């Protein structure tokens, strides 16, 4: 299990190394304007592992158990080791900061594709409900 503990402790410190400054991009200068991109960052990971132990008997202790004798784990036998993990992350533009000699202003960035997709789904949801209500009302009148 030492290998797992080392792996997990290393994974655990990875996220601490990602600085909050990653949210703000490098300032870009265009003439007398400076533009700073701003993003939302999210990431995560998970991992799990295990070492098989001596084979047990599922019905052990039950009256009519016909299970084979359980092998004693004296530590001399090597049991199979398994593990798995995954990680993912995303960065999404949220806004940009524009600095000019007149002042600073924040311009939000709208993800039009997501809004359009959500709008289509909302429209379909609304049409479905209106259809269901009208159908029910007219069916009962008839």
């Amino acid at each position: 299990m030492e290998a797992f503990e080392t792996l997990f402790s290393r994974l655990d410190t990875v996220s601490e190394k990602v600085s909050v400054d990653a949210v703000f991009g490098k300032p870009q200068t265009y003439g007398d304007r400076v533009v700073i991109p701003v993003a939302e960052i999210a990431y995560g990971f998970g991992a799990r592992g295990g070492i098989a132990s001596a084979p047990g008997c599922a019905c052990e202790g039950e009256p009519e158990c016909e299970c084979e004798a359980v092998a004693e784990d004296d530590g001399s036998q090597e049991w199979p080791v398994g593990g798995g993990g995954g990680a993912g992350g995303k960065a999404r533009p949220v806004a940009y900061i524009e600095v000019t000699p007149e002042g600073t202003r924040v311009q939000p960035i709208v993800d039009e594709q997501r809004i359009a997709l959500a709008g289509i789904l909302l429209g379909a949801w609304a049409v479905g409900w209106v259809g269901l209500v009208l159908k029910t009302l007219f069916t009962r009148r008839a």
Partner: protein
Amino acid sequence: MKLPEQQIRIVAGTPIEAGSQRLMPSVLVQEGHWRWGNSGLYRYTRLRAVSVVAESGDAAEWHEIPDVTAQMLSSMLVSAAAIGVVGIVILVLSHLLHRR
């Protein structure tokens, strides 16, 4: 089974020099951490810019950084829930009136 530990905090970022102004950013950090003894772990982190304070000379100005996309999606979700609730109310009322 132990529930995931969550932490939400606002952290000040490194000041950014932009032209004649100095920007002091602040970031919302949301962290979740889950460990299964010594056999596994799950961890996620979400970083989102909250605001920036622009300093020039003696004056300082606070600017909020809104997440317009998330706000619009939330309002759409609320609208969808409202449509569903209104639909259910109409169907229930119709059913009750029909029984009478």
